[in-house]
């Protein structure tokens, strides 16, 4: 039994028939082909799947696609505008905030939420805001620097 949903993703409207049990993360990846959103776990522990849902950073593996009916979503693919990278994307590049890149989309989305709420966070605030996201490569050091750099350039 499929259910029809309407969502806006990265500014584009979609109407899709989905199974009620389909996770939002899998909807993005498998149905829309937006594979920039990653799935790293099955217990909502890694944050690799973090996206923006109606202005809030959400782990997209914790929502069903049907719960996103009517929502406005932004994924990593939609963060740059008109070819210009978002300051967070620039920050991660400049400060070597990524290695394998698997945690990166979720990390950037979680950081996006932080900067929305607190445009000038301290290092401790950055670390606290990102504690829901695992990175196994960077030791977080350069991720903190990346977010700091993005905050500085956006200010």
């Amino acid at each position: 039994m499929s259910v029809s949903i309407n969502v806006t993703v990265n500014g584009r409207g979609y109407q899709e028939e989905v199974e009620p049990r389909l996770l939002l993360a899998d909807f993005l990846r498998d149905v829309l082909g937006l594979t920039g959103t990653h799935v790293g776990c099955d217990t909502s522990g890694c944050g690799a799947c973090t996206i923006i849902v109606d202005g809030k950073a959400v782990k997209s593996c914790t929502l069903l696609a049907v719960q996103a009916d009517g929502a406005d979503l932004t994924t990593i693919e939609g963060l740059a505008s008109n070819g210009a990278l978002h300051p967070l994307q620039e920050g991660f590049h400049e400060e070597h905030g990524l290695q394998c890149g698997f945690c990166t989309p979720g990390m950037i989305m979680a950081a996006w939420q932080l900067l929305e709420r607190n445009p000038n966070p301290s290092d401790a605030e950055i670390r606290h805001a990102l504690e829901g996201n695992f990175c196994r490569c960077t030791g977080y050091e350069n991720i903190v620097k990346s977010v700091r750099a993005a905050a500085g350039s956006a200010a």
Partner: protein
Amino acid sequence: MAKYIGQAVKRVEDRRFITGKGRYTDDIKLPGMTYAAIVRSPHAHATINAIDTSRALAADGVVTAFVGQDLADAGVGGLPCGWQVDFKNGDTMKEPPHPVLAVGKVRHVGDPVVIVIAETRDQAQDAAELVEVDYGILPAAVDTVASAGEGAPLVHDDVPRNVPFDWGLGDADAAAAALDSAAHVTTLEITNQRLVANAIEPRCAIGDYDSARDHYTLYTSSQNPHVIRLLMTAFVLGLPEHKVRVVSPDVGGGFGSKIFHYAEEVLAIWCSRQIERPVKWTAQRSESFISDAQGRDHVTKAELGLDADGNFTGLRVTTHANVGAYLSTFSTCVPTYLYGTLLQGLYTTPAIYVDVTAVFTNTVPVDALRGAGRPEATYLLERLVDTAAHELGLDPGELRRRNFIPPFDGVEQPGYQTQVALQYDSGNYAGVLDKALEMVGYDDFREEQAAARAEGRYLGIGFSTYIEACGIAPSAVVGSLGARAGLFESAVVRVQPTGKVSVFVGSHSHGQGHETTFSQVVADQLGIPIEDVDIIHGDTDQVPFGMGTYGSRSLAVGGSAIVRSLDKVKEKGAKIAAHLLEASEDDLEYAGGKWTVRGTDKSIGFGDVALTAYVPHNYPEGLEPGLDFTSFYDPANFTFPFGAHLCIVEVCADTGKVTLKRFVAVDDVGNVINPQIVEGQVHGGVCHGIGQALLEGAIYDGDGQLVNGSYMDYAMPRADDLPALELGRTVTPCPHNPLGAKGAGEAGTIGATPAVVNAAVDALWHVGVRDLPMPLTPQTVWQAIQQAGS
């Protein structure tokens, strides 16, 4: 001349990752693709009495299902071990079969039993739940030491005492004599707990059989696609290697766990052949916990003898190494050649003996994990040294300095021959310690520590001065030690007619930034813009051969292969240039991307020479057209990075919580191509090492169930667990490779762990705590404080 080497060139690979355009294995969708789910054993040890797949086969969308007997009947072999380590008495290593799907018996929770293939992932998973397996539960061997004792359940019926091999290195008599006559002996019983690698990308494999060409493609999240192809075609499936292509696209971290050849790779390929459709398997995280090879798991008694002046006189180490239920690809060399050989550390200890007993248990196989053997060696050595310093009332820095191998560059002064088989290449060990002590402000810290103690606050500093061995080689030597593979690396430098350069490397990048680092080397050596260089890796159809990336070998070994090919390009280019300039080759010099006749302004650019090589109208007689070279580089020796890590912690006496206050790491990884990338490697490595010290550990209960097999239960470092890391560097070039590079990927992990534990023990020594088992959870530390006080 170096425009790029030594610079923090921003990574060229970043753009695809920060825009969501990375291409990991699970991102690949092929036409007609099916999805696999694997039914795994819920028991650690059981007979398989019967398997009923009928309900699964009847479920919606199910294409087919296979059991172990189906593969056995088709002649599919078991997963091979890549390194043979025979018993001390010369008996051959016991290597029981490691079937792709279990036959007759399961030997660990997670052992694969049935594969179910369906039109969608959900259908495959639903159907897998419908498979009924009748198990006869057997008692499990779980404990590392007890499993090698009398009466323990046997994991494999034909492996007595669960011991597949034992191993010794060094001089047992000399070590015993040294300990007997020592003025002081420091003894520790150490458990180096089992870890789970937990790369954030779960493993994934897609098999794609093309019946039109009778050709196979495997996409897999692997650190070494050529090795997988070799093992899979030659040992498991008996397929013709030239008809099999293995692609490792972007890989989301490995840390060792993606080196090995896994059952799911075989299954994806073999099943695709059976159904003539692509088959994808992606691990769920809970599956990764019970199917990715795990790491460490040593139980060790270590004794260090010292004379009255604090000189180390002898070291004896006795280790039980848990290898899990089967011998994974490199499981045998990790607790032997990558462990015992590192026990010289940075010290002149004249007598060393290490004895290792490998033990099968009904747990997930154990294999290399970031550092692989070297962290285990360094942990026990550095714990011994700090403990000896405490016991003798000596400063831990001073005790180390007394015992350091004096500086040697490997050119003027020869390499240092250890008591445990290796010859160190070059080192200045006091140099890294001095720098770290200066960075940390050591004398001030000791004052601060005393003042804090007076207030009832427990501060401690931990030392760790480590050596590591990278780029394991040369092939002839490792072959004589039992390796079933060579350990060289290959690189093709293909100069295109327009002077752009494509480089095909056998190393694989899964976060290390090879596309940038290698481009820096190529651009500088050829004097061309970095934008003109493209690095290609991870595809056996494009890259002639490769041994992959592990053991921090890519720059030292893979980078050197590139340099070899670049030399050949320049040599042939000079012949063409000389012809075009009507000069003698000997009069030419190559700089800034052009050949110039020395002392004149006559020159010709790299691009013109490249074009001429492919449009050879005016061309040297007898010279082949083209500008394209392949090299295989087999190093003369390992490389030996080293460093000093200092950690400052505060321990809360009331709760046992250990808080990291500072972490200073001074590493010497030889010449550095990209300091920002190297720092990133050290950050990640240190974080991993801190994780082992404070948080991580796989916990099995007595039945062999992994108790903490999820991200809810297995603790790993998060951003707010760590202080800002303070890094320093000294540079002692490697004398035997053309880049002078040593390797940086594992150094942090090797050095960090003992520094943290030493710091916590230092904080608590005055209350009577002598040792702390990892991980240092508040409960563990609090209990140790209570016991010490009672």
